[in-house]
């Protein structure tokens, strides 16, 4: 099938196309330079055209989601939509049903989403859920930061075997990259403790967050994985944690990037908003965004996503189990905890981010400060750490805040608690994002950060993942506060979303359902070491795991269809 999207206003930061009126041509699922006269013409004259969105960090599939749905039936009642001839029924607001997750991303014009925390033991389950999510490709990241084998190798300083272990486990779990959550903290939670700062060792293992992040980052670069180390630093959500965040970023500064990768960073620091707090307690808490942003402005080895608070009632779910327990103690609502054997632990609670609450307003303002203080949009990605800071369906609303300082002033003056003005620098920031920057932080930058060359842009040869919105950027003033609602509405229902050359959304409605692909990294060149490592760890595996190794692996039929990234680790 061939398409030609005619006369749209195209924003494609990767290829330096900034609001040019041009045609986008599609053939056999790819962007091409020419199409035949048989191509179907989609007239998008003067409409906003971008590559489909890429999400670098969200929680959309896996055991936490399932626990969340079981544990929060009251959330499932929100967002109920009846089935249509094409779609299944939708349920849920912060933890939507699997199919609703796919439809909602698709309707916003997104094409690729990262599932940011897959415990290896639950990888099978995660892939099963991804099979039920339509219309988006998924890059699952595998959790390593509190894994007993990893802690053992780090303790021994045995990077060779650690690299082989990571290579083997990415194959076993069929995941795309590495994720670390509160390194050593979730392991300490097994003893009912947490760690504080990057130099606080986990009980028994006697290794620190710094050791783990450094070792895994070195391994990541040894293997040349497409994505960098993806870190959720220690001390999430604690006043004064900005220093821990800077320490974490600085810990890997000297590590050389593998020359074969397209990304610029060696460390991706996720949901930075939760890690940029000043003060010593919630009484005197203030913004720590400035020093964090300053560090990122001066250091190109780091990228981040924000985890912007959207001021909704949502669900927090993370592999940072001790932090969830702290939150539960604060909120007094309900709490679920999940222990993942030798690998990690997770927690989950409902949370209400209220614009009337001082702390929540402060968090909201800190997220926006980071967006506005980090100068290079290629180092920032728009996320809500969905559903932790808010559900992903709020991305259009966040875009409306970024594009209009008038709208932000309106909110600071009348809608949020005064802590947002008094304890942050947000009122002094009048920077606004233009469409090119929006395209960068929602498409181009995340694709590059993930190391994906085939998406996030509209150059010839890229996947035909395209979003068209019912908005004429040349005749629209996004800086006007009154237009914020229009931006939110229009970006929430794409005129067209095209996924690999299929029109999956038309006029804001799902027009076609396609299977999501599982993206995974297959490291080549470590086969011998992997074999040796597996032999070595098998006694411990057999002793402590509740499953047999034969049932632990994710078999091929769990990842159909998939995209395999063959990585030559010898490079």
């Amino acid at each position, binding site marked *: 099938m061939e398409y030609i999207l005619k006369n749209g206003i195209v924003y494609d930061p990767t290829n330096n196309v900034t609001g040019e009126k041009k045609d986008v041509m599609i053939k056999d699922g790819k962007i091409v330079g020419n199409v035949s006269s048989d191509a179907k013409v989609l007239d998008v004259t003067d409409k906003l055209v971008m590559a489909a969105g890429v999400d670098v960090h969200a929680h959309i599939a896996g055991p936490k989601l399932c626990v969340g749905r079981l*544990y*929060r*039936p*009251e*959330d499932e*009642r929100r967002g109920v939509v009846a089935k249509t001839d094409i779609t299944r029924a939708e349920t849920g607001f912060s933890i939507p049903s699997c199919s609703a997750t796919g439809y909602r991303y698709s309707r916003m014009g997104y094409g690729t989403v990262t599932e940011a925390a897959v415990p290896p033991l639950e990888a099978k389950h995660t892939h099963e859920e991804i099979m039920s999510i339509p219309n988006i490709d998924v890059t699952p990241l595998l959790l390593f930061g509190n894994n007993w084998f990893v802690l053992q190798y780090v303790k021994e300083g045995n990077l060779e075997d650690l690299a082989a272990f990571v290579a083997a486990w990415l194959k076993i779990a069929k995941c795309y990259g590495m994720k670390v959550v509160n390194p050593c903290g979730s392991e300490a939670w097994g003893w009912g403790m947490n760690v504080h700062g990057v130099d606080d060792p986990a009980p028994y293992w006697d290794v620190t967050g710094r050791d783990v992040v450094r070792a895994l980052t070195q391994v990541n670069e040894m293997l040349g994985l497409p994505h960098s180390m993806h870190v959720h630093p220690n001390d999430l959500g604690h006043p004064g944690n900005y220093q821990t965040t800077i320490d974490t970023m600085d810990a890997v500064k000297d590590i050389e990037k593998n020359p074969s990768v397209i990304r610029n960073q060696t460390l991706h620091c996720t949901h930075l908003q939760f890690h940029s707090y000043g003060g010593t307690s919630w009484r005197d808490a203030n913004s720590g965004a400035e020093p964090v942003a300053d560090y990122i402005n001066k250091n190109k080895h780091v990228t981040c996503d924000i985890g912007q608070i959207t001021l909704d009632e949502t669900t927090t779910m993370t592999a940072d189990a001790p932090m969830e327990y702290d939150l539960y103690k604060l909120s007094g*609502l*309900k709490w679920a905890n999940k222990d993942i054997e030798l690998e990690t632990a997770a927690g989950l609670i409902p949370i209400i981010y209220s614009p009337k609450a001082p702390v929540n307003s402060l968090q909201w303002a800190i997220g926006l400060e980071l967006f506005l203080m980090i100068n290079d949009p290629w180092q920032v990605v728009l996320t809500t750490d969905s559903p932790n800071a808010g559900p992903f369906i709020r991305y259009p609303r966040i875009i409306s805040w970024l594009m209009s300082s008038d709208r932000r002033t309106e909110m600071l003056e009348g809608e949020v608690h005064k802590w947002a003005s008094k304890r942050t620098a947000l009122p002094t920031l009048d920077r606004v994002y233009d469409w090119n920057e929006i395209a960068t932080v929602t498409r181009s930058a995340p694709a590059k950060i993930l190391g994906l060359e085939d998406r996030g842009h509209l150059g010839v040869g890229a996947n035909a993942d395209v979003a068209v919105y019912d908005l004429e950027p040349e005749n629209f003033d996004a800086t006007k506060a009154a237009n914020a609602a229009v931006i939110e509405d229009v970006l929430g229902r794409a005129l067209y979303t095209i996924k690999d050359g299929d029109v999956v959304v038309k006029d804001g409605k799902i027009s076609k359902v396609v299977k999501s692909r599982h993206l995974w990294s297959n490291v080549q060149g470590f086969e011998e070491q992997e074999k040796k490592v597996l032999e070595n760890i098998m006694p411990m595996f057999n002793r402590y795991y509740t499953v047999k190794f034969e049932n632990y692996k994710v078999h091929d039929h769990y990842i159909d269809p998939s995209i395999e990234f063959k990585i030559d680790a010898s490079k």
Partner: protein
Amino acid sequence: MKTITLTLKKFSSIALEFDELKPDDIYTWSKKDFEKYQVPVGNTRFPLSNYFDIEVEGEAEGPEDVKMILDGDMGRVKYIGCGMTAGEIIVNGDADLHVGAEMEGGSIKINGNAESYVGREMRGGNIEVMGDVKEYCGTSYIGEWRGMSGGVIKVHGNAGKQLADCMSGGEIYVDGSCDILAGIHMTKGYIEIGGDVTRWPGGQMKNGNIVIKGKLSSLLEGFNPDGIIENPDIDGKQLTGKYIKYIGDIGVNGKGTLWLNAEKNRDLL
């Protein structure tokens, strides 16, 4: 005033759902509109006129001018008056689940028994049930920690389990007896039970008042006695007789009050 009378002519064993037929949405409807209307039945819809004879008299300016009369056994009609904000509904017979759930105003009278979830998450208005209600009357819904926050429910018969779970406002009166865990998780509001209570009223209650005029079989350990009070005045409601006052549930640092009729509960004196 517009009077809408629906008289049951065919009983469906699969439940009909009436949440679209609240006064707010139908005050402009003529008889023809009702005859055109397809009512949800299980996973499909059938014409309302398959099940009811429909009479419409008079005109309404708004939902407050509507009086709906449902004649016959509505034991398989769910969501009667669900979410209504004004108007009046009278059921001459039994009613199925969720009568007056999420109701904000107006009144409902059931001249019969009602199933579970009467007045669930109710915010205002009045519900009167002449017979019994089953479980979860005036509660929250599954998983939800925010329950009934306003309005009044009067039950002339008996109430089932977990009456007023997570209640945060409003009043509930039960003339008959009540099963376990009345007022569990309650944070505010007033519950008055005329008859006997099996066990554990006020489990994990943080605040609010529960009055039991009959005999309580089993009190929770989390309640501390706080004296005997004659003719107590509770939130402006004057009770007659001696009452044993308890404060709890101390398990959750609760400051709720449980009042037990001293005469009927002499074993606790």
